[in-house]
């Protein structure tokens, strides 16, 4: 077999990751070359996400939310500007496994059981099978799928598959979570439960989150700051800080809080000043 071309993850405990900002994006442009010409996906993006901060990206389809997330994940390279993750280049951070990611599609391996899918990153990075099994059990319990450990992805509903993908993204307790509309396929009940669960996980682990969503209430409920983007070319319209006081004990009560509705109004107004976006901004899942 061929030998390892990519450097293996270094011992991240040696590097004081928490001292730096989680993500710093400076002057980033991204242009795609396509057959029908160039597509300007992002222009002049500047954004800093502090360690432990929850930031949502919201905006109409095609405004470059997924593209920005892929740049942070080092799955694409910016045409101009720089992306820094915990003070390192995006590429170094990826090799060091500094982030966990959940894509818009669950992206499970259909030939592996649910448990083997969740354990995939641990397996690739050489965790012992005892550690792995303990962690898998913990994670499946967290997303409420303990009874489905031995099922195959094809036997699960779309929402359950997405929960498996979320469990997988949390497997290595990353300090940064990148999530692209992870709850888009879930029903409203599960969605709210997962949101509260995600907040609890973040409070526990102190992870920073970059969270892409179509839903204004979701963005407001979850975020410290909401980044409102607008399309053609994709740019940051406005960054709306949320003034919600978070108390993990009464997370659900927040949904009826005055500050919550003020936040929703603020984000909606920001979205509408960008382009004449119709009412479609409300939780529409156009993927």
């Amino acid at each position, binding site marked *: *077999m*061929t*030998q*390892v*071309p*990519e*450097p*293996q*993850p270094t011992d991240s405990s040696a590097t004081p990751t928490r001292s730096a900002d989680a993500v710093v994006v400076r002057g980033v442009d991204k242009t795609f070359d396509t057959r029908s010409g160039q597509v300007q996906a992002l222009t002049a993006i500047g954004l800093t996400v502090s360690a432990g901060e929850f930031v949502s990206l919201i905006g109409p389809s095609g405004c470059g939310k997924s593209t920005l997330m892929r740049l942070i*994940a*080092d*799955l694409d390279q910016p045409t101009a500007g720089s992306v820094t993750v915990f003070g390192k280049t995006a590429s170094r951070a*990826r*090799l060091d*496994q500094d982030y966990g*990611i959940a*894509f818009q*599609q669950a*992206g499970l*391996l*259909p*030939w592996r*059981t649910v448990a083997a899918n969740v354990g*995939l*990153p641990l397996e*690739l*990075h050489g965790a012992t099978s005892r550690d792995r099994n303990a962690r898998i059990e913990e994670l499946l319990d967290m997303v409420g799928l303990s009874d489905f450990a031995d099922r*195959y992805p*094809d*036997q*699960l*509903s779309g929402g359950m598959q997405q929960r498996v993908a979320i469990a997988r993204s949390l497997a290595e307790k990353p300090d940064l979570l990148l999530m692209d509309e992870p709850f888009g396929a879930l029903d409203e009940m599960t969605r709210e439960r997962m949101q509260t669960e995600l907040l609890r996980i973040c409070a526990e682990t102190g992870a920073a989150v970059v969270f892409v969503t179509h839903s204004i209430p979701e963005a407001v409920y979850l975020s410290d700051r909401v980044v409102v983007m607008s399309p053609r070319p994709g740019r940051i319209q406005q960054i709306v800080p949320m003034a919600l006081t978070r108390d993990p004990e009464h997370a659900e009560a927040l949904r009826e809080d005055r500050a919550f509705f003020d936040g929703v109004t603020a984000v909606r107004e920001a979205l509408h000043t960008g382009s004449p976006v119709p009412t479609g901004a409300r939780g529409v899942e156009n993927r």
Partner: protein
Amino acid sequence: MVLTLPGKSRSAARTETTLRIIAPIAVGILVLVGWQFLVSVIGVSDYLLPSPAAIVEEFIEFFPSMVSATLITGWNALLGLIIGSILGILLAAIAAGWRPIDHMSAPVVASLAVIPIVALAPVLNSMFGADSQFGRQAIAGLASFVPVFINTLRGFRQTLPVHRDLMKVYAASSAQIVRTVTLPTAVPFVFTGIRIASSLAVISALVAEYFGGPRGGLGGLISTSAASSAYARAWAYVVASIVLGLVFFLATLALERLATRGRRRS
């Protein structure tokens, strides 16, 4: 979709499987009854169409020879299938990993696919001598190679972008990528190729026997029996060939199912 009542869907599936087995058997029996009727009541002459009963009689009378002929042809086909499949998989793996090989092999494989490979039989027979089975095995191997190569190569190209992204995120080595994503994605395609190849291997091993070389295989005995006007016996050997072809097909189908278990497409 998947989460319907398990009892209900299982019983529905069982009815479907039963139907799938019963329907062809019913059709087969009808055909046999009609055939026997044509021969014994309407009186179609024996050399045009021997009756099923006569064929069965010959089959039983020459049973030891049926078995040995099936074993000879079956062994040629099996050897060809195995070697052709291994070569097909290896070459497809190389072509998938290395563009120039892909471009070089494409015209070769295309011409292999269009040339009737049994046409090589007389050539190979005179090359390797009249008492060698090698020519037939080589022909079965060539015939198997093509579908296995084409399907495997296609399988290696099916890796989903989201899986590729995931492997990049995990900083997986190329060996890990091949093991965790590329190979498992390709496996169903490989086995589909082998299933297609299995029938071709039997057919070409059998037909190759018509072009000289040692007797004793099914093809050779079919032509000898027909040449000596033993039509019912010729048909009995044809029945043995059908059985052999079915065994190959069912075995490779079972292999394919086994390789893709847990991946039911709903």
